[in-house]
């Protein structure tokens, strides 16, 4: 068996937060990510799905080594990213790249497109000016921009074009893994499919792997090979995309999918499962299975007291729910 590009082992991140006012000694612990284990094979796309506060953004930041885990490990190509130093860290920085949600926030307004796109190479590799220019031209061309646009500033571009610049700067070092944090949700509807197709083309061309964080289920169905559903910091279900859409096992996944709105007039649609209440605060999660107060298939007694363990219910399909244990 080959080494996966990415492996998460019991990854956990807690945040210490003050809950009262400035002079309050009350402290709280937010369990943003709790005991998440996952793998991603080369050339595959994994989607992290969940609602606000589910920990998917914190998880993405740990993958990028922007945030150290409280416990657990992130392994890229079998190497624990927390231990990287010097040249291995530089290698990691060219191997893993990111594209963020808002193309107005992710490009420095004071830098020219050339400098934005070239940054990873400038920082990590010694290249001649000519070589650098060639690589920038190549990156811009492969995202559908013209090389001469490198002299412009970001404000001279539209949202979709700016996201292309961000993508060019991510692919210039030919990364093996890209973390895409809501990469299309800030864009106009007619631009989204352009960008999603671009990601697919890049994957075909460069063979890189994606971790995509998204709340739009249509986007994840189109982009991902596997989907990991998170709720209040925990992984509740992981499975191949088609399996999760066709036969969701965890009640939360079920509810999430039925809340998605298909492009069909309502007359020929099944009634959706409506969840009651809202996502509880991650600072004070419910006992047992964190989903039990909103669950439509709750088992009395058990769900409110025991935390369900993740278990395999099929090849590459894992779920953490008492319905499937014992």
């Amino acid at each position: 068996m080959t080494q996966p590009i990415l492996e998460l082992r019991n990854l956990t991140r807690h945040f210490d937060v003050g809950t009262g006012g400035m002079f309050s000694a009350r402290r709280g612990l937010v369990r943003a990510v709790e005991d998440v284990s996952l793998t991603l094979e080369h050339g595959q796309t994994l989607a992290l799905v969940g609602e606000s506060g589910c920990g998917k953004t914190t998880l993405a930041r740990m993958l990028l080594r922007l945030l150290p885990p409280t416990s657990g490990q992130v392994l890229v190509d079998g190497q624990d990213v927390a231990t990287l130093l010097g040249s291995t860290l530089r290698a990691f920085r060219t191997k893993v790249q990111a594209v963020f949600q808002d193309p107005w926030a992710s490009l420095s307004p004071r830098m020219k497109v050339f400098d934005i796109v070239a940054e990873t190479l400038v920082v990590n590799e010694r290249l001649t000016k000519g070589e650098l220019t060639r690589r920038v031209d190549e990156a811009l061309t492969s995202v559908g921009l013209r090389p001469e646009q490198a002299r412009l500033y970001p404000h001279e571009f539209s949202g979709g074009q700016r996201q292309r610049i961000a993508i060019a700067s991510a692919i210039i070092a030919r990364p093996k893994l890209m973390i895409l944090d809501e990469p299309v949700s800030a864009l106009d509807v007619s631009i989204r499919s352009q960008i999603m197709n671009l990601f697919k083309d890049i994957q075909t061309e460069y063979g890189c792997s994606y971790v995509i964080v998204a709340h739009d289920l249509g986007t994840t169905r189109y982009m991902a090979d596997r989907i990991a559903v998170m709720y209040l910091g925990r992984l509740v279900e992981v499975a191949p995309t088609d399996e999760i859409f066709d036969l969701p096992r965890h009640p939360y996944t079920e509810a999430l999918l039925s809340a998605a709105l298909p492009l069909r007039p309502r007359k020929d649609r099944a009634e959706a499962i409506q969840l009651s209440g809202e996502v509880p605060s991650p600072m004070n999660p419910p006992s047992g299975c964190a989903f039990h107060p909103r669950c439509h298939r709750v088992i009395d007694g058990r769900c409110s007291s025991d935390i369900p363990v993740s278990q395999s219910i099929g090849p590459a399909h894992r779920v953490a729910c008492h319905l499937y244990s014992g």
Partner: protein
Amino acid sequence: MTPTPDPPVLNVVNLRTELVFGAHRVEVVRDVSFSVMRGETLGIVGESGSGKSMTALSIMQVLPRPIGRIHSGEIWLDGRNLVGLSEDQMTTVRGREIGMILQDPHTSLNPVYTVGNQLVEALRLNRTAESRTLKKRAIALLKRVNVADAERRFHAYPHQMSGGMKQRVVGAISLAGAPKVIIADEPTTALDVTIQLQYLQLLEDIQRDTGTAIVFITHDLGIVARLCHRLVVMYAGRIVEEGTVADVFDAPSHPYTTALLNSVPHVDRKVDRLYAIAGQPPTLNEIGEGCSFAPRCPHADDLCRTTRPPRDPGKSGSTDHFASCWKLRDIA
């Protein structure tokens, strides 16, 4: 469908709205007409620069000052033309006859007053309840929008509530005047999907109970399919297609509508490759004489680029389905 005997509650006729920057004028709503019946939900679909939000602001007459103004057109609300009313008269129309729900619940509520205060204030302004019963009415409204534990929430401040809860309160405030029309401008964009579904369900329930008309502005075709009876599709300030949701989704007749429907990924089936509309949405000052979509349209020819297409019956054959495209009959 049999023709409805009632006149429409809201009837917008040939509305033109412009933004004026010194000597420079940009028309953001270009000759837009539509109507909404009592108890009906109309979706206005478009992307940035389509003029959908400007249309809403024009109806409420809260265009950005001092640059925005209605150039011409009529906005009939229950038999009265709102265009030309004084600001005082509009103030009584807003809130009492038209309710508004905006995209961001965080900025729609005043952070320094309790939710109860703001609701009571809205009720008082609308003079729909006696002062003794104001609080009772306010709590009833909170219960109406499914705010759990309404008596306690009455005393809460906006920052103590989640986004979904706040958007419910905004909904309650917009209901305070028992409005004839509610204009909702992307009210669920900031909400999570499960909360969004709850909210759409709430709007439906309210409409069933009160018979209010809803104008729902969105870029999300999934929401339109779920919630709306009819829709208009806007592009670069113009309506390019209008009809019932079933007709437009089953027989999209404008290339933009078709492209939009094909470019959105489906949740209920896997596609190998999405259709991508070429180019960028136009900025408003680069729109020419002809069809606004022509620069991005695969079927466009010289006629499309130079002459504005007429409003023709759509492909479904229904009497209330229209599209503005020269190639309507040519494209299979």
